[in-house]
């Protein structure tokens, strides 16, 4: 019955609906954007009413929120954490620095474009993005999930070698366990 095309569709719709309304964000403040996460989660903006809540470890989380610039040192940890998350998983790039380096365009220690290294589903721009913008970003992600278009993880799996090549280019000492699915 599950193999039947139509019923599969219905199952997908239900699953995507649940994924859309339950977004567990990994507690990882990678950059200065992390300062606007507490206001987003607390009383005035209250992201929890949209089903957004924090998750303590990557195994439980759905969304990796890259809050701002990534230094090469952090990038290594972010990749590690991203690969430990369970499918389906999404990445939100947060702040101008994840898009094009922002004001650190000539810094020797930060990456400029996040989607070369990790598959980004939604970018939220601004320096720093206001909580409203963050909520809008979550809204966009929800929309993408509901439509089944938030498939960054699949893209990552399919193009793993390309991503890996980019990552290894700036992380010289690659000591991580291999990601095999």
């Amino acid at each position, binding site marked *: 019955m599950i193999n039947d095309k139509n019923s599969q569709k219905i199952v997908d719709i239900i699953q995507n609906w649940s994924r859309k309304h339950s977004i567990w964000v990994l507690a990882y403040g990678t950059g200065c954007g992390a300062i606007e996460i507490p206001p987003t989660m*607390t*009383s005035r903006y*209250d992201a929890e*009413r949209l*089903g957004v809540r924090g998750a303590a470890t990557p195994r439980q989380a759905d969304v990796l929120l890259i809050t701002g610039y990534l230094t090469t040192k952090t990038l290594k940890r972010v990749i590690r954490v991203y690969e430990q998350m*369970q499918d389906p998983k999404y990445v939100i790039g947060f702040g101008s620095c994840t898009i094009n380096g922002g004001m650190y365009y000539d810094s020797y220690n930060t990456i400029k474009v996040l989607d070369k290294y990790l598959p980004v589903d939604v970018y939220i721009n601004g320096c720093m993005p206001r909580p409203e913008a963050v909520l809008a970003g979550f809204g966009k992600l929800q929309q993408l999930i509901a439509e089944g278009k938030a498939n960054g993880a699949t893209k990552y799996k399919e193009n793993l070698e390309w991503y890996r090549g980019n990552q290894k280019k700036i992380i010289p000492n690659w000591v991580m366990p291999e990601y095999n699915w």
Partner: protein
Amino acid sequence: MESIWYKILGAIITVIVAFIVGLTYMGLSRKITARIQNRKGPPFYQNFIDALKLASKTSAIHHGFMQHIGPAFMMITSIMSVLVVPVLTGDQWFSNLNFKGDLIFLLYIMVFGPLGMALGAGQTGNPNSAIGVTRGLSQMVGFEIPWVMALVALMMQYKTASIVDLINIQQEQGVWLMFSSPFAFIAAVLAMLGMFRYSPFDIVGAPTELASGPVSENGGKYLFTLMSSNSIFAFAKLTLYVDLFLGGASNIVELLIKTFAIYLIPMLYGTVSPRYRTEQAIKYFWGWPLFFGFLALLYAAIF
């Protein structure tokens, strides 16, 4: 033969009811906590969505067989507890196979799952999990003592170890045990704070200390099973309290009102309390709760 199948069917229905009620209570608790914290909060059915989401996660990892079956152990405990505790008095459908509702058996089956889960958590090799487990076991030694004192007081006072008999006694006397053995009730409620693992006793999976402790390596279907198990278990514990101290419940509405009233105690206490350190939690349970436990025993011995 036919009656057994009816019983099993009834038991399955009970478990499903427990699952729904447990998740709803958790959702309501999130809602109420949110209102206390000045915010709108998630809808009360948020936990169902979370559970469904976890169940529809496509991938999962485990570090070995024990971790794989850990949640199943947890499920044994919760479902067995629901089956042992009489949910509704005098109802055919909710007699749920209860094995005469023996209290000592219940105490021990309640440990079965956590220990199995602890083994699973141990196999992950994550030090946070192991530390969480040691904390949980230590805390358990803490709150079990006043809890058992309360139960022993009841058993001695009414010469029975069966929950069914205790409910019957309450209905015959027309007075709840909460009033006829008040000290046992106080000791049991204080111990309950630890049993529900809300703040200040949420030391097992304290996120800021251990990054969610024993479950830190569980995701997807494992976390779903654990979550369902927790909700069923919560319902079982609440029903147990209602059965023991609040005279049981004869219909489902009464049951819901009484269990929710009990549930509010640890929840509301939790929203305004920071977390104890492990040894402080143990010492807390060996303070006033133990004192009330002794009073309960004394009361049982005298009357």
